[in-house]
């Protein structure tokens, strides 16, 4: 690799960028795998409702389905902003 690099005008190492991007997106997609298809839409609609009362960011809602023995549990968590709650967005 060293010799080749010397001969060429050192190209940018884009393979590393590709690998990092893949690592992140693949792990994210794996964690949401197997969950129902309606989750993204549910998340958007819930966000819209919550936003009527509190201004929260898009990524403040975390929603996932977990298996607990026989049944599935829909787990929803909303991180509220630090300042006074109740201020409408």
């Amino acid at each position, binding site marked *: *690799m060293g010799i080749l690099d010397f001969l060429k005008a050192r190209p940018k190492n884009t393979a590393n960028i590709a*690998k990092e991007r893949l690592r992140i997106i693949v792990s994210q997609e794996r964690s949401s795998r197997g969950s129902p298809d309606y989750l993204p839409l549910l998340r958007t609609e819930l966000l819209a409702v919550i936003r009527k009362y509190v201004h929260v960011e898009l990524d403040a809602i975390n929603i996932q389905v977990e298996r607990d023995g026989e049944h599935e549990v829909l787990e929803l968590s909303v991180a509220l902003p630090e300042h006074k709650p109740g201020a409408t967005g």
Partner: protein
Amino acid sequence: MTETIVVTSGKGGVGKTTTSASLATGLAMQGKKVAVIDFDVGLRNLDLIMGCERRVVYDFVNVIHQEATLKQSLIRDKRHDNLYVLAASQTRDKEALTQDGVGRVLDELKADGFDYIVCDSPAGIEKGAFLAMYFADRALVVVNPEVSSVRDSDRILGLLSSKTRHAESGKGGVPAHLLLTRYNPERVGSGQMLSIGDVEEVLGLPVLGVIPEHDSVLSASNQGVPVILDATSNAGQAYVDAIARLLGEERPMRFTEAAKKGLFKRMFGS
């Protein structure tokens, strides 16, 4: 015992059909009785790569709809007596393939004493791709060292581990192997292409074989001769190695180092 192997990828254009043709031919060269089936309904292409496009009379959908018998529809390879091709239909009706129908055809091939059934999956994750993998005992996931292909492969690996008969019957996911195609060691060396290690790390699976990017792949498809039959081609030789590994043999990787480095490697390595 018949083994059903699906060749799949998610992304299109990565080399599924090229791989299916070489895999089926390579297994036949080992004396196995092999059938290779094109699941790409509407976009038949395996026949061209196998060089039997002018001999297609009946196709997979005809067999499923019982318009022709399996025997009438299997096209015997010109080069190997023990290799048969089942072409995809040209119909635009994507619903032409049914789970029961595909299962029946596979069972009939098993009863006919085939050792291997190679299922050439279409791109995407729709019905054809789903049915190509559904009955598989093993999977060969074809991946290019490129972001979209790697991501799609991960998606396919997820489906293999859940949406297959193997998984549904409680045996766990379909055992899958990665086949890295269109690999260019020079570009990997200069940091412009994902390396074997990068792909293995992201997907969490070892690579079974690496097929170098080579002009011989295009000239083989131009002529309708599976590239594995080109003894002078690095890509063809890499397919020979990959199939030997698939059958349990241990073989060192070849053609995975840039030319100059390869010489050094050969001097100090094996």
